[in-house]
């Protein structure tokens, strides 16, 4: 079992290295590596279904309790199989997507490396391993977002993504520190510490999850991340990496008990609505999907808080397949039309009906149209949230929103245009193959709800007539809102498009003040601190002159030492006044020379003199410094 665990992460890593070394055979290596990597992951899932658990770890630090390793249990097996499956499909697709790109092998290697790190994250045996891979997927993600060198927004998007998530990661760091201080262990099943420390840990974990899962008000990095290539958006920024936040909540569910979990629920509920509104206001297909992702991840947060890990995980798996399908379809349109802006995609679905079919399938699932998987997973969340009216209302609002924000681009794609466009030729087979596999998977997923609860040892998924009825109503409202658009105040639409000004606020409240503090301190550093130090030097010099005279009468031998020190301090003073005068340098150089000669002569018996001089000199300085400090 240990071998299977390590293979799940090692196979994609090895494939990444091979792709880097042999770029000419990148495509077959990538497909082979990604598909092969799914085998141990599914074997793990089968083992977990048979109630097997395993752990394999190495001691990473000498102190006890700092192992790095992987574990098999129901939760990690489900996540690992999801990641491997979506990963395999997306990578098959990616070989087609990058077929014409001379830097394609680099992107494929990056995606494979990401896959390895993501497997490490979901299979992590404790919080230390989790933290390590949590940070690694963040860094790899930034590299992949910045891939498009011709897009000026790509580097900026990568930087913003990394910085936003790393800021939130401070929460994970602090939670890890606090957990270790309180329990002496970083195991997932560590006992929850009582009182404020327990809440502190919970808060840190929720913060980290919010960053990774792009929850309001930290959601804007995900929109910027859409500057990355579409397969990257499909794998990292919809299906797997952003879901890591939900996974973290599910994994540390016990540690979150109380108000941290409540907080996660509120954040999720609000994000579900905000994300839907943002998605509705975008005019780029990928940005619509990004808004949708934050909204759906918000639903999962509500699911963890209201119904427990199994509820959230069901939606996570369903969403991963559905949303990845949507992105892959978007990538097909992008290849045909060389854009993802909605106005450039008019009629793109009619030109490429296969891609449109895939898009429709994904959309129906994510919009929770029965009997597709999305309907059942979202219903479980809605039913679980029933007891919390505010969350329930948010879930229904977001359901209406999801129908609307997916129908809107679907109509654009299907609108008739005078001239049918051309279809791109290269890479189409692999692209359709990868996307098709995911679409089929998302059809089958409606059936996994019950097995999932068994696997996670949880209660059956909640369901109620009330939530089903209201969900269907919400769906209808959403469709109606697109077919007969209501008049909305322009300000509201603008606010949604600008993500409610979150970006501007973050810039004004965090980014600018930090940069300004840096610049201010830099100015102070270049002028102020130096002046202060030179000022002290001046004071010491003045005092030392006076004291040297007094001292000279008392102690003949001291004159030498004090004189020498005074000289050096005076030299610095003169330099302050005359900026690097040669004389000062020469004086010091001579001094150094003398010192050097003296130290070389140390062994020839003149030690005592030297020692006496230095002692006296140093004592004098000490006294002077003390005096200067007192005065």
């Amino acid at each position, binding site marked *: 079992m240990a071998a299977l665990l390590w293979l799940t992460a090692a196979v994609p890593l090895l494939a990444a290295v091979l792709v880097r070394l042999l770029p000419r055979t990148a495509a077959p290596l990538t497909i082979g590596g990604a598909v092969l990597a799914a085998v141990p992951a599914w074997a793990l899932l089968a083992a977990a279904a048979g109630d097997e658990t395993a752990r394999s770890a190495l001691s990473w630090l000498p102190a006890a309790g700092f192992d790095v390793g992987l574990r098999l249990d129901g939760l990690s097996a489900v996540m690992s199989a999801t990641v491997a499956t979506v990963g395999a499909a997306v990578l098959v697709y990616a070989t087609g997507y990058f077929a014409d790109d001379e830097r394609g092998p680099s992107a494929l290697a990056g995606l494979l490396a990401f896959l390895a790190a993501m497997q490490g994250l979901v299979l992590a045996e404790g919080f230390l391993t989790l933290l390590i891979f949590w940070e*690694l997927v963040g860094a790899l993600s930034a590299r992949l977002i910045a891939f498009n060198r011709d897009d000026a927004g790509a580097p900026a998007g*990568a*930087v913003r993504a990394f910085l936003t998530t790393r800021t939130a990661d401070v929460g994970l760091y602090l939670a890890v*520190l606090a957990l270790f201080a309180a329990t002496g262990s970083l195991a997932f099943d560590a006992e929850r510490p009582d009182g404020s420390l327990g809440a502190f840990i919970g808060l840190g974990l929720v913060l980290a999850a919010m960053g990774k899962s792009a929850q309001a008000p930290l959601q804007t990095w995900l929109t910027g991340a859409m500057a990355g290539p579409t397969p990257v958006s499909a794998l990292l920024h919809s299906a797997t990496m952003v879901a890591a936040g939900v996974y973290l909540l599910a994994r540390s569910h016990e540690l979150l008990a109380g108000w941290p979990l409540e907080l996660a629920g509120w954040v999720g509920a609000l994000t579900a609505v905000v994300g839907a509104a943002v998605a509705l206001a975008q005019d780029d297909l990928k940005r619509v999907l990004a808004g949708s992702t934050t909204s759906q991840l918000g639903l999962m947060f509500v699911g963890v808080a209201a119904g427990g890990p199994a509820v959230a995980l069901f939606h996570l798996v369903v969403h991963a397949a559905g949303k990845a399908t949507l992105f892959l379809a978007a990538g097909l349109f992008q290849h045909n039309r060389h854009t993802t802006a909605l106005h450039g995609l008019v009629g793109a679905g009619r030109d490429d009906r296969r891609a449109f079919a895939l898009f429709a399938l994904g959309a129906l699932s994510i919009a929770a149209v029965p009997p597709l998987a999305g309907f059942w997973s979202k219903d479980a969340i809605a039913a679980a949230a029933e007891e919390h009216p505010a969350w329930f209302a948010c879930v229904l609002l977001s359901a209406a929103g999801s129908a609307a924000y997916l129908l809107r681009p679907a109509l654009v794609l299907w609108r008739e245009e005078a001239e049918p466009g051309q279809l791109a030729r290269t890479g189409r087979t692999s692209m359709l193959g990868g996307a098709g596999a995911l679409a089929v998977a998302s059809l089958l997923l409606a059936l996994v709800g019950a097995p999932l609860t068994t696997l996670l040892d949880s209660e059956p998924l909640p369901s109620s007539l009330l939530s089903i009825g209201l969900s269907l109503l919400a769906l209808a409202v959403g469709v109606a809102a697109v077919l007969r658009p209501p008049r909305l105040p322009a300000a509201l639409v603008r606010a949604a498009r600008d993500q409610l000004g979150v970006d501007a606020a973050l810039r004004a409240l965090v980014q600018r003040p930090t940069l300004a503090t840096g610049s201010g301190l830099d100015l102070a550093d270049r002028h102020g601190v130096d002046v202060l130090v030179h000022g002290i030097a001046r004071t010491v010099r003045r005092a030392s002159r006076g004291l040297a005279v007094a001292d000279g009468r008392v102690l003949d031998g001291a004159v030498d030492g004090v004189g020498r*020190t005074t000289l050096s301090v005076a030299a610095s003073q003169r330099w302050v006044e005359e900026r690097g005068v040669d004389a000062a340098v020469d004086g010091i150089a001579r001094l150094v020379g003398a*010192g050097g000669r003296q130290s070389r002569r140390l062994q020839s018996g003149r030690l005592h003199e030297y020692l006496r001089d230095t*002692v006296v*000199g140093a004592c004098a300085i000490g006294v002077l410094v003390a005096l200067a400090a007192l005065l």
Partner: protein
Amino acid sequence: MPWLTLAVSVPLLAAALVAVLPARMTAAPRAVALGASVLALACMAVTWARFDAGRGMQLVEEATWIPSLDISWRLAVDGMSLALCALTVVLFVLAVIHGVGPKPMTRAAAALLLLLEGATLAFFLAQDFFLFYVAFDVTLVAMYFLIALWGEENRRYAALKFFLYTLVGSLPVLLGIIALFLAAEPNTFNMMRLAEQEPLAGAGVGASFVFLAFFVGFAIKTPVVPFHTWLPAAHVEAPTAGSVLLAGVLLKMGTYGLVRVNLQMLPDAFAEYALPVALLGVVSALYGALVALAQTDLKRLIAYTSINHMGYVIVGVAAAAAGGISAEARELAIDGAVLQMVAHGVVTAALFFLAGFIQTRARTRDLGLLNGLIRPMPVYGTLVAVAFFASLGLPGLAQFPAELQIFLGVFDVWPAVAAVTVIGIVITAGLFLLALQRAFLGETSEQWRGLTDVRGRELAAVVPLIVLTVALGVFPRLVLDVINSGSWL
């Protein structure tokens, strides 16, 4: 064989040899320097193999030097000394490969490098306070000349500033040494005996003064804010190899002294001042990071991040000195602090080499002028990215295990201090990512399209450091098992 004495004396003898070489043998200085530094490396490798991590201070080599004052040539290693000596010998080999000043390397350059190496090793190995102090001052002189002779435009100013600051710092250290000498019973410069005896244990004001004397000296060397202004000046003006050695090895003398002297010989006084020292460390960490954020000169930027990273070390050591810390957390804090010294040495050395490479090609290090470098220089860009991510503490690279252990140790005593310190990792992430974005990504302007990628000697200097960075990040126990602070603290 007296391997430690050999490690110290081979570079020193080679320095003397280089100085008397006839001027017409132009290739000889570099060859001798390379040979001697490799020999020193070999001596430390043998020591590493002979070292028993469970035994604390060991492999003592002793010869009476000045009997009247009980001064001896006394060298020994424990985990901290060995780790730092290993760092030293590796960095010196690479510095010699890279070279200093005009090519081929002059006799003066080779002699100064070797003098610096011998003195640095003597400092980290010395168990006699007299030798300790002499070595401390000799490194100062050697570095002064390296900067003043082969630095950039403003080199004399920077060298002088460096010299004065550190000289002022070394005087209170001398004062402290003499105080400890006099307080010991019988009087001794033997550092092992002083660490055992703790002659000023619980001795109130006197101990405080001695503690402060040492602290000020080491704080200037480290440097701790507000004693740091010599550092950016020195780094910006120093030649590449000078910056590498200054940041890689010489800064560690400050924190090494803090552990070796303040923590081991004056633990009671340190316990009293632990919190203020920790706060100075936090200020350094955040101040260094924030000021680095505002830099556009790549070398200045790296210099300020050094203040940030050494700030973590200070916080870690202070936590270990605090009264209320558990034995386990104390070990974590010191293990982390020493590992951070090594990791920062490796990573920052790589960074300064890399900054030097762009300086020689583009004749500028201004991040506002450079752009799109990844296109003409893909290998260089990759190396820089790895070094940047290592420096911002990414897991899998050298500094993460060190910083994590420091944070873990500190959190045990002062959770609030740890929480504030952790913010530093966000600021460093910001400044490195912004630097990458500015100089490496985006459009490549016309003037940079023709830049050539790194090659040959440059790769030989920097690739070993990148390999070490990854190795330490993935297997931190390679060094941590040797450091093993539980056995000597």
